[in-house]
């Protein structure tokens, strides 16, 4: 049997101990999490009513020439509606006569348009036989909403 020499044993020990002392190589760092970027594009502002003004005449800009909430029996009554926002717009004006707790529908008109900038729309009503004196209101609805975006009360007489 062949004997193993002391030098070979020492060399084997050095290699083995050296291996223990070596640091195991670390795994590569995990990739950084994907960065979430906040969209920088600005969504168009929702279409909405900013003001309703009543009067008995309007100008070319569809705005009433003199705001009023009391009208004569033979007046044409205008509601000038300021809107802002982009997209397809539908405005509905519901005119009502108010007597105590009761209301009677006077008229309902809808207008549709493509809105890209602040817009002024006008609704008007007239009555050849003259308006009954009393209290009235006009409610402005946006789209299919069942609650008015804005309501204005006015008086005739």
């Amino acid at each position, binding site marked *: 049997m062949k004997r193993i020499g002391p030098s070979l044993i020492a060399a084997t020990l050095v290699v083995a101990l050296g291996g223990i002392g070596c640091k195991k190589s670390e795994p590569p760092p995990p990739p950084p999490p994907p960065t979430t970027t906040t969209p920088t594009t600005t969504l168009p502002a929702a279409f909405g009513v900013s003001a309703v003004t009543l009067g008995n005449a309007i100008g070319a800009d569809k705005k009433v020439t003199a705001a009023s909430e009391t009208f004569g029996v033979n007046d044409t009554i205008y509601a000038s509606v300021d809107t802002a926002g982009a997209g397809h717009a539908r405005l509905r004006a519901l005119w009502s006569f108010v007597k105590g707790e009761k209301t009677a529908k006077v008229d309902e*008109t*809808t*207008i549709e*348009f493509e809105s890209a900038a602040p817009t002024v729309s006008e609704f008007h009503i007239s009555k050849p036989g003259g308006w009954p004196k*009393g209290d009235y209101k006009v409610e402005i609805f946006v789209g299919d909403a069942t609650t008015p975006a804005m309501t204005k009360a006015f008086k005739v007489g």
Partner: protein
Amino acid sequence: MVATGDKNPAAPGNKKPADDEMPDFSDVQSGASSTAPAAQAFETYVVVKGDTLSKIAKRVYGSANSWQKIFEANTDVLKDPNKIFPGQKLKIPAKS
């Protein structure tokens, strides 16, 4: 635009309405316009029994021949101009 639709029925004759009666608004005329280009104004008319597009056109525009104007404005809900039913809501374009 001549007011149409579900407004109060005309009071009989020229009788002054009683205190609890509401006035008659059947002769109200209305309209709308906008600074937005290509704005379309219309009234909503609720079909009642016995209505035809010609009858509605006669009442609104003064001419039964204008029924097509109403039909064209309502092609999303009407496929046949001879088939309208009570309760149906139609867009009535403004007089031009």
